[in-house]
């Protein structure tokens, strides 16, 4: 399964390679607009599947301000969804507001797990 770490690595490679960048970045922007989550008041990191130990741990480590803001966005989006309305345009999440607030925590936890995996499987050379 792709980990957040591997996705970020692939993303970095795309951004470093001009030809790939020129193809993928506009496509990504197109898809984000099509997905429409910003129109419900959500950020991309709100969409990350959260029923995993890694995401749960990351959420537990979020500063309290971030976790309140996240819960507020989730509630707003749920309300919008059940009433079949989009938010008024001025309340849409702007591209510059769509920050990866959860990703650094996910990467840190994945790094911890990877280190544990590595140390659980070291061999001792004589």
């Amino acid at each position, binding site marked *: 399964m792709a980990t957040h770490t591997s996705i970020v690595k692939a993303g970095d490679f795309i951004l470093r390679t001009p030809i790939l960048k020129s193809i993928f970045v506009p496509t990504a922007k197109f898809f984000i607009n099509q997905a429409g989550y910003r129109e419900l008041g959500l950020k991309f990191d709100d969409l990350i599947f959260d029923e995993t130990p890694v995401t749960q741990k990351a959420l*537990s*480590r979020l*500063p309290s301000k971030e976790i309140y803001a996240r819960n507020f966005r989730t509630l707003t989006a749920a309300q919008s969804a059940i009433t079949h309305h989009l938010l008024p345009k001025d309340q849409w999440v702007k591209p510059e507001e769509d920050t990866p607030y959860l990703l650094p925590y996910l990467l840190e936890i994945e790094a*911890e797990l990877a*280190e544990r995996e590595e*140390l659980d499987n*070291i061999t*001792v050379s004589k």
Partner: protein
Amino acid sequence: MLSRRLATQSRGYATKVSAKDFPGKVSTLTIKVNAGSRYATKDGISHLLSRFNFQNTTARSALRLTRESELLGGEFSSTIDRDSIYLSAKFLKEGLPYYVNALSDVLYKTSFKPHEFPEVVLPAAKYDLSKANASPIFKADELLHSLSFRNGLGNPLYYDGVQKISLEEIKEFANKVYTKENIEVIGSGINEADLNKFISESSLAQLPTGSSLSSSSVPKFYQGAESRIRASGESVAAIAVPVKTEEFATFEVFSAYLTSALSDVVVSDAKLNKYSQAGLFTLFVKGDASQVSENIKKVALLLKSGVDISSASGLASTKLALASEASVVPHQVDVSKVKDFKLGKFNYVAIGDINNLPFADEL
């Protein structure tokens, strides 16, 4: 003093280092930091800092440190008393370079990651406190320190959450106490030249300079105070006397006398806590309230009338020799001239079934 300065400057770091080489396969390396509870900027901050030791550093994670150390054959510990935080490593002799490096990194490179505080440090600190508080003698001891010194040496040893402490405050405290002048490196079973060499190559040599916090003035003594706490479990009655350093010998002999078969009174424990610039003699009687009441009255009667304790000076020197084998920084006390003892003013604590424990004025 001047010659020390010169010597340390030529060595490139101003940290006091001492080491003794012994036969055998084991070495112990201790970094003593003047950061015990008496120097706490907030109650319990020393304890929290001590529990942060051996967590993640920028050089290696706590997990890696544990796993590497297991395979190299060593163990770490971080303990506190009222004077100091002691970071120790006990290891097989050939591991010296690794352990100097690992201990130094704790002082210089601890990451203080925000999630470690609630996930690791706070639960561990809570555990220490609950384990200690299970003993009524510990509770009495804390109270007696508080009555006898109020601030400084009277600060609580462990973090109890009464004063909230943030991660930022712990970091600030670490920056204040982990400085070249405020720490001392003590090795046993280690060649001093080797130790100096490895230290100069380690991050200890890069620690910021600061000033030693080690207190140089005698703290103020408070006497004649009493405190009583209701609690379930065994009852304790305890007496404490703050002691000047020049009286250490008398109280050492006196403790030896009281805890040995030489005296006819029953005490659960009696000891002299030696700190820099002052000490606190404590005496505890533990058990059923009625028994405790009877025994503490007998003890007080004996002490107030004065006792010849010269017979215990030999035993006291034996006990001091045993203690100095076990401690990192042994205190030297000459007990040969001690003759007798009479109790003057004291502080008194009763814990447990206090309706059946005597008041100080009834002793």
